[in-house]
């Protein structure tokens, strides 16, 4: 797929002149003609949606940075000034704030799609790893950005998260001071967070370029999870344009409708009311919670009784994603043909949502109100603490135990020999493996 013949023929003089010096039109034309598996479904549209999300965040962010003041005395008021006095500022700021949530909705669905269809398996390990790098950078960027309005949740979220660094043995304390730019979260912290929040999206953009480069080198995966041999390219693929530009375009518009519903009708639904209270280092909010997209990882952090252990588990929950290509022992990519794994996958999705739910609750609160329970080690069994621990155990077991074990033990369904076979050749799949 990658080494498809270039079909671009320069017609005019200037195109010929340019093509022999900087073949940029050829690059674009070849991109548009890229052979794409014809069986891609709507779950495959999130890549394009994510690209749009990144562009929206960068464009709105640059405009916001023209008006934002990274100073502890003025940051909160400057954000409100954007909302009140800057022309269209309320729109730009709400798009940026909700855009972060939309970005994470799309990235989680994109990652689950990759997980379901085995998009991380050879020869696409690098695409997956670069995707994990992007995800990690997105979390860092979102965290830094959430600090900038300098509300109560900004300040105390920064306090909680930077404190985690202090849990690192030996170097924790100096590292914490270095990161904050002082012994406490203050103006120096806000300034560097603003600087890094502006920088990281461009780093993300760079990694996205690598992600796409790797994608176009090894070729796109597809719902059948079968490789497309060169001799079948013509049968199994369609040019990217117009077939997938129109399909992606339709999905993008549906996504924008969801986006618009939040921006115009519930712009603060995904945020926390406390972040409209200016940061006050002397008043701790009753309940410090991160944004919804960090809640599963926050829950994992709190599930571990030891602070540094919690930090390791939280980073481990993201770190384990990097090695999935080598944890999955199955010869079949797509879970469409892996009925056993499919069940574990559905449980995994529910567990992920459950962890998010737990992350928003107080650990001591009862899961089933009023149900009598007993103390188990350091907490009541009927508490979010123990539910979180149960879900955390499944989260890690899914990757570290279930994935290698089921891959070896299960008997997959017959996999079609090619992408187009089920749709073009009468639908009688060859036995494989």
């Amino acid at each position, binding site marked *: 797929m990658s080494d498809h013949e270039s079909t671009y023929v320069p017609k005019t003089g200037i195109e010929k002149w340019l093509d022999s010096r900087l073949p940029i039109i050829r690059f674009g034309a070849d991109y548009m003609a890229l052979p794409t598996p*014809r*069986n*891609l*479904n*709507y*779950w495959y549209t999130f890549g394009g949606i994510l690209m749009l999300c990144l562009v929206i965040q960068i464009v709105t962010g640059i405009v916001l940075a023209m008006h934002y003041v990274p100073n502890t005395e003025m940051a909160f*008021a400057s954000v409100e*000034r954007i*909302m*009140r006095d800057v022309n269209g500022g*309320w*729109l730009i700021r*709400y798009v940026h704030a909700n855009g972060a*949530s939309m970005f994470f*909705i799309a990235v989680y*669905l994109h990652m689950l799609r990759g997980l379901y269809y085995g998009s991380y398996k050879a020869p696409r390990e690098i695409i997956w790893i670069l995707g994990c790098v992007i995800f990690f950078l997105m979390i860092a960027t979102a965290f830094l950005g959430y600090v900038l309005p300098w509300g109560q949740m900004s300040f105390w979220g920064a306090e909680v998260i930077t404190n985690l660094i202090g849990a690192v043995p030996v170097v924790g304390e100096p590292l914490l001071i270095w990161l904050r730019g002082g012994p406490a979260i203050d103006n120096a912290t806000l300034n560097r967070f603003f600087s890094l929040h502006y920088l990281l999206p461009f780093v993300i953009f760079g990694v996205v370029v690598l992600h796409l480069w790797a994608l176009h080198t090894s070729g796109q995966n597809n*719902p*059948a999870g079968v490789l497309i041999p060169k001799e079948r390219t013509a049968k199994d693929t*369609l040019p990217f344009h117009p*077939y997938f530009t*129109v*399909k992606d*375009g*339709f*999905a993008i*518009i*549906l996504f*924008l*409708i969801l986006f*618009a*519903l*939040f921006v*115009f009708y*519930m712009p603060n*639904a995904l*945020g*926390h*009311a406390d972040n*409209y*209270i200016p940061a006050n280092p002397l008043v701790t909010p*009753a*309940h410090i*919670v991160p944004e*919804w997209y960090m*809640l599963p990882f926050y829950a994992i952090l709190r599930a571990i009784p030891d602070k540094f252990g919690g930090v390791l588990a939280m980073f481990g929950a993201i770190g384990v994603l990097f090695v999935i290509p080598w944890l999955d022992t199955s010869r079949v990519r797509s879970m*469409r043909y892996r009925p056993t794994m499919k069940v574990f996958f559905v449980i995994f999705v529910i567990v992920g949502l459950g962890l*998010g*739910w737990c992350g*928003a*609750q*107080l650990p001591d609160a009862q899961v089933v109100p009023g149900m009598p329970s007993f103390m188990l080690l350091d907490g009541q069994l009927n508490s979010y603490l123990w539910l979180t621990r149960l879900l955390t155990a499944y989260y890690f077991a899914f990757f570290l135990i279930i994935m290698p074990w089921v891959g070896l033990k299960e008997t997959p*369904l*017959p996999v*079609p020999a090619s992408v*187009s076979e*089920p*749709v*073009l050749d009468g*639908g009688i*799949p060859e036995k494989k493996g």
Partner: protein
Amino acid sequence: MTIQNGTPSTVFKIVASAVAALSLVAVAAPAGAAGGEAKHPRSGGFSFEGPFGTFDQAQLQRGYKVYREVCAACHGMDLMSFRNLGQPGGPFYDSHFKGGPADNPYVRVLAAEVQVADIDSETGEPIMRPATPADRFPNPYANATAAAGANGGAAPPDLSVMAKARHDGANYIYSLLSGYVPAPEGLQIAPGQYYNPYMAGDLSPFWTGDPDHVPSGGFIAMPNPLADGQVTYDDGSPQTVDQYSKDVAAFIAWASDPHATERKRTGMGVLAFLFIFAGLTYASYRRIWKGIAH
């Protein structure tokens, strides 16, 4: 056996997105209620609720009057300028005055009723002068320490964005202000504290009654600020605590999000455009993919 195509339908995708969105709201919502067993706010039945709701200008004017005559004695609204009162959607907006808020005589008179601190341009001495539309609402205290000192240690919070800073903001403000009731028997109240069932908090350490029936609500340092007949309304609206609370809650809701009406109206256009665009794109999609097996 046959292999299913497995392409999720468009409907499925929309439903999946909607479920995702709703679950996000559900996850985000309980966090706002945490921190105490406060009573759930009553509905103020506000005109600005819902996707088509707009502010009731008469109500905003009454609400400003309540703020100016009652709340402003202790609460600042540092983000508000007098000119905001005359901007489109504001309490005193009038399209007759082409020069904008500064040209609006109501705004000029309302501003001039308030004295603000300034520096005499000739002598450099601190002076007080009547405000202009360009001035911000003056804060009743010189600084936060003075505000706390004058109020038993609890500085009255700024009200500029109060409706966004509390869960279910407008209803919460309305319920809190109109919800003062005598403290239940058995509740130990420290001097300078008052009981309010809508205030967040945990009263169990101060409750001497049945531990299974700790009263809802919390302590608030603000005494009941409103009484029937306290503010004179010129439009015949009832001069009751309930009406005052509703009106000032509406005013604060507008001040917290002054472009809310414009936002909803813009949203209608954006959504209409997106739905038409989606329809056209889907038609193109069907046409381009016609006869293509996939």
